[in-house]
């Protein structure tokens, strides 16, 4: 069974958010980049499946400049078998997904499962999985919380939705996007880091897919006015605010 995991590079969750180039670009200086947390859950799930079954081969892919190399190497150290980087920093999810699909066509590689995160924590799109599924005609299973493969080769899935969970069975090939807890993220071992050095890592030229959207600029949200403290001995003041100002009672 072949699994592809698409990963994106995002600033660390605690990194300061600031912008340069008239707000067009994120200020990368001094910022630690990580594998997008949701993609980490996806990668970890692929690793779990690899441990459970004998026949699993995992490829990680990223559409990015060489800034993503260290993250792809980390994925190899965690246990992925191969890494592919398509050498362009994508402008939007359509471009990223399109480049991945073009690479699939060109290389002739076929995957039973394609994993990615439910969204990135910087673009907050959640579109790459849906785009890939749509372009390949694969079953699209967004926001997956649990996944098992049954003895007869079906996907046994729990999806998380607003207000509950959906239990379903689906066939492969499928594109699955991961929510938190799909699997426990892993750390690379020393042995893994050594092995990663000899694993296949290819850099591919982009096919030149045009984005459908362009980021014009970023800005920070307006600061809230200073917090007004309410005396706990006079909680009625807060009730007045709930009534008169916020109007929820």
């Amino acid at each position, binding site marked *: 069974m072949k699994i592809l995991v698409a990963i994106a590079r995002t600033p660390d*969750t*605690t990194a300061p*958010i600031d912008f340069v180039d008239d707000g067009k670009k994120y200020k990368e200086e001094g910022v630690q980049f990580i594998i997008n*947390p949701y993609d980490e859950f996806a990668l970890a799930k692929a690793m779990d499946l690899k441990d459970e079954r004998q026949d699993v081969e995992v490829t990680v892919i990223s559409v990015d400049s060489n800034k993503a190399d260290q993250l792809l190497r980390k994925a190899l150290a965690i246990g992925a078998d191969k890494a592919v980087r398509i050498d362009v920093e994508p402008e939007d*999810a*359509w471009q990223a997904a399109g480049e991945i699909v073009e690479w699939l066509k060109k290389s002739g590689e076929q995957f039973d499962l394609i994993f990615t995160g439910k*969204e990135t*924590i*910087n*673009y*907050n*799109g*959640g*579109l790459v*999985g*849906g*785009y890939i*599924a749509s*372009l390949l005609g694969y*079953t*699209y299973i*967004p*926001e997956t*919380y649990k996944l098992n493969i049954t003895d007869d080769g079906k996907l046994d*899935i729990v999806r*998380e939705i*607003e*207000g*509950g*969970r*959906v*239990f*379903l*069975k*689906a066939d492969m090939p499928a594109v699955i996007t991961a*929510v*938190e*807890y799909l699997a426990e993220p892993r750390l690379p071992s020393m042995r893994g880091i050594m092995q990663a050095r000899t694993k296949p890592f290819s850099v591919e030229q982009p096919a030149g897919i045009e*984005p*459908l*959207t*362009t*980021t*014009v600029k*970023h*800005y920070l*949200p307006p600061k809230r006015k200073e*917090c*007004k*403290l*309410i005396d*706990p001995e006079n*909680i*009625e003041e*807060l*009730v007045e605010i*709930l009534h008169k100002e*916020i109007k*929820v*009672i």
Partner: protein
Amino acid sequence: MAVIVYTEHEDGKVKRSSYELTAYASELAKQFNAGPVVAVTFGNVADSELAALGKVGAEKVINFQGEGTDQVDPKLFFDNLKTLLDDTSPKFVVFGANNSGRALAPLVSAHLKYGLVPGVVELPREENGKLIFKKNAYSGKAFADYQVNTDGAVIMLMRNSFDYELGEGTAQVEVRQISGDRAYNIERVEKATGKVPLTEADVVVSGGRGMKGPENWHLLEELAEELGAALACSKPVSDMGWRPHTEHVGQTGLTIRPTLYIAVGISGAIQHLAGVSGSRYIIAINKDPEAPIFKACDYGVVADLFEVVPKLTKAIREFKEKQAGG
């Protein structure tokens, strides 16, 4: 030409978020002269409920009914939407920034080859003939302006982003039978507990580690009950299994934008604030005056939550009784 808006219902009622989406779609139609607003919905619901979407400008509601329409199935739903898209050539297709939107909007965008903007928080503006949408970015820590490079656009609108009023009007309702194959076989659905769905709620009461254990959650349930609020929690709380993951708000959980968010015993780490910073008002209750939440809220109470929460619940109850009585 048309503006298509994807609407939803629960327990026989059209969701309030769907009214907001339809009102937004109507404003788009007006601003860009984009033709009639056609709402689409799946599953059994009374015609009269759907016709009421006319009050926010829907001209027509297409209701797909039949087996498999009560839970979103990306393939089945999209295959039926596709016919509608091809028949009406919409300039805009509007979804909510929620599970259904995430399941369907990318498929629609790929089909129409329209740029998709997820997490939109405002009406677009036009610059040099291009549409520009303001969207949520960096998980609520920033905003971004996205330019759509195509003639039409697919939009996923964040909840509580667009103010609207109910007007007059009745939408024409057309029932269609769903047809086509499903992506998967749904075996069962487990509804989360809690009366008000978190993403639909106007008021959210949320607990953090300061609650000390799941056995104390009745304090928040009682407060939520008085306010008609939904319950939420911070990441440590869901990590420890005190509360289900479906209630986790924050960077790796849900992003919500209620009118009022009440954070109880939550210190306010940046990852948590990311998920709630779009709330119109934030009230924090925490005994540590140095907690970062007090830098991010509108009103704060520095006190022991085990004393002040029951007091607040009681004060609200008494206020409501007084209002009802007087």
